[in-house]
């Protein structure tokens, strides 16, 4: 079994991306609190409050990380412009490398400080969503009525531009997807149960994954900090460190990753209603 380390940048990206996107959940919470109660209660006030709190915690963490990542970016730029790559013995380059290492340690510290609160918030939200999904969809619906609910919402939302792409299938960055969720919910006025079912499912599965990532990150963070402290004494920059910084930047500042939206619907045309009496 492969040991997961804090230097695994893909792993780190997943974590940070979830933390960043969680911030975007705050506003939908306010929208859903409108008096128009949906038929299925996937987002009662308690769940909304938990999502809001998780968003607040994630926002604080994001702000802290953004500052230190900005500094790391500047230091990396200086390192490259000074032609330090392949010239590690140079005292000036060593100094820049140590500064980068310090910033990297600071990033780890921020994550270490914020993660316990984040973990609690995510786990609480996840537990609440689990309860709602089980009672509202798992126990009150059959698979047929669940499908009918999803189909009805498709009909209600003929304007497909505002629909969320689905988790893990669209290739779309999480933050973009949550932006779409926000737009959908903000427009809905609480009348799109099935879309809410999709959103709730998506958030729940993301929260589950995030919870696991946080737990593993916490386990590894002290060891990673120790490793970086050792690196500091030699004034070296590890390739993993550079990759982590580049990866986190791409999430926070929206660089690099191309959007690959889900297959678009065909050009909209007025469609005749299927009048077959056989259609279920």
């Amino acid at each position, binding site marked *: 079994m492969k040991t997961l380390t804090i230097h695994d940048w893909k792993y780190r990206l997943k974590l940070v991306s979830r933390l960043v996107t969680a911030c975007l959940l705050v506003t939908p919470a306010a929208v859903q609190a409108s008096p128009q109660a949906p038929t299925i209660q996937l987002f009662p006030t308690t769940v909304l409050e938990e999502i809001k709190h998780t968003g607040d915690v994630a926002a604080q963490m994001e702000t802290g990380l953004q500052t230190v990542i900005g500094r790391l970016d500047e230091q990396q730029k200086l390192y490259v412009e000074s032609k330090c790559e392949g010239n590690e013995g140079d005292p000036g380059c060593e100094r820049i490398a140590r500064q980068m290492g310090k910033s990297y340690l600071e990033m780890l510290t921020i994550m270490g400080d914020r993660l316990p609160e984040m973990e609690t918030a995510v786990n609480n939200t996840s537990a609440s*969503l*689990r*309860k709602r*999904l*089980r009672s509202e*969809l*798992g*126990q*009150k*619906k*059959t*698979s*047929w009525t*669940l*499908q*009918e609910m*999803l*189909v009805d919402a*498709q009909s209600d939302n003929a304007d497909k531009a505002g629909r969320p792409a*689905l*988790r893990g*299938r669209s290739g779309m960055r999480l933050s973009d997807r949550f932006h779409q969720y926000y737009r959908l919910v903000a427009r809905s006025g609480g009348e799109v149960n*099935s879309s809410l*079912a*999709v959103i*709730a*499912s*998506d958030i*729940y*599965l993301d929260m*589950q994954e995030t919870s696991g990532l946080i737990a593993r990150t916490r386990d590894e963070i002290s060891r990673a900090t120790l490793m970086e402290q050792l690196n500091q004494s030699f004034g070296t920059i590890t390739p993993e460190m550079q990759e982590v910084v580049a990866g986190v930047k791409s999430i926070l500042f929206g660089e690099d990753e191309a959007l690959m939206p889900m*297959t678009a*619907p*065909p050009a*909209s*045309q007025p*469609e*005749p209603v*299927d*009048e*077959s*009496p*056989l*259609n*279920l």
Partner: protein
Amino acid sequence: MNKATTSTVTAALAAATLAAILTACNANPPRATACSLPEGTDLDRAISAARFDLTTGCEQQFDQYFQRLLTIAEGDPKKDNKAAFSEFLIWANEEGLLSKRQARELYTRYFGVKYVSLISDYSVCAQTCPRRDEVMREMNKELVNKEQGLLKVSADRREYYRANRLFQETELVLEATCEACGPVE
């Protein structure tokens, strides 16, 4: 005399043979005996031929006939084909070849957005989650049927898109809901 008697007997035998052949023909019409699947590219003609065969001894091969009609319709995809298949299945129900439920499920499997694979009487937690993988495999097969019915036969990209999207949404919601329902007992 002998010659005349022989002629009479021969004529009588010939008449009897002819009568026997005609009787046999009336009992087993040649088309039905062959149960030959319709050919050509004209869907209306193919449906007429299928109707004839299916009411004259070939009803056991309903599925093969239905598949052949779909294949023929693929040659000229258009939205009217959906109505033609609807009428054909209603007719099949009226003729007693299919129950109303079978006709509905067959039509929906090929030309509807919803999935008959999801028909169930009990809750998602109780009935669907314990066999979620199997349900998803069935839905996947049904999506292939919808590709044939909605896209290749009816040229209805919009409805196929909806069916495809429903598949993805259902997969996501079932994954989350079944996770929330807890482990299968």
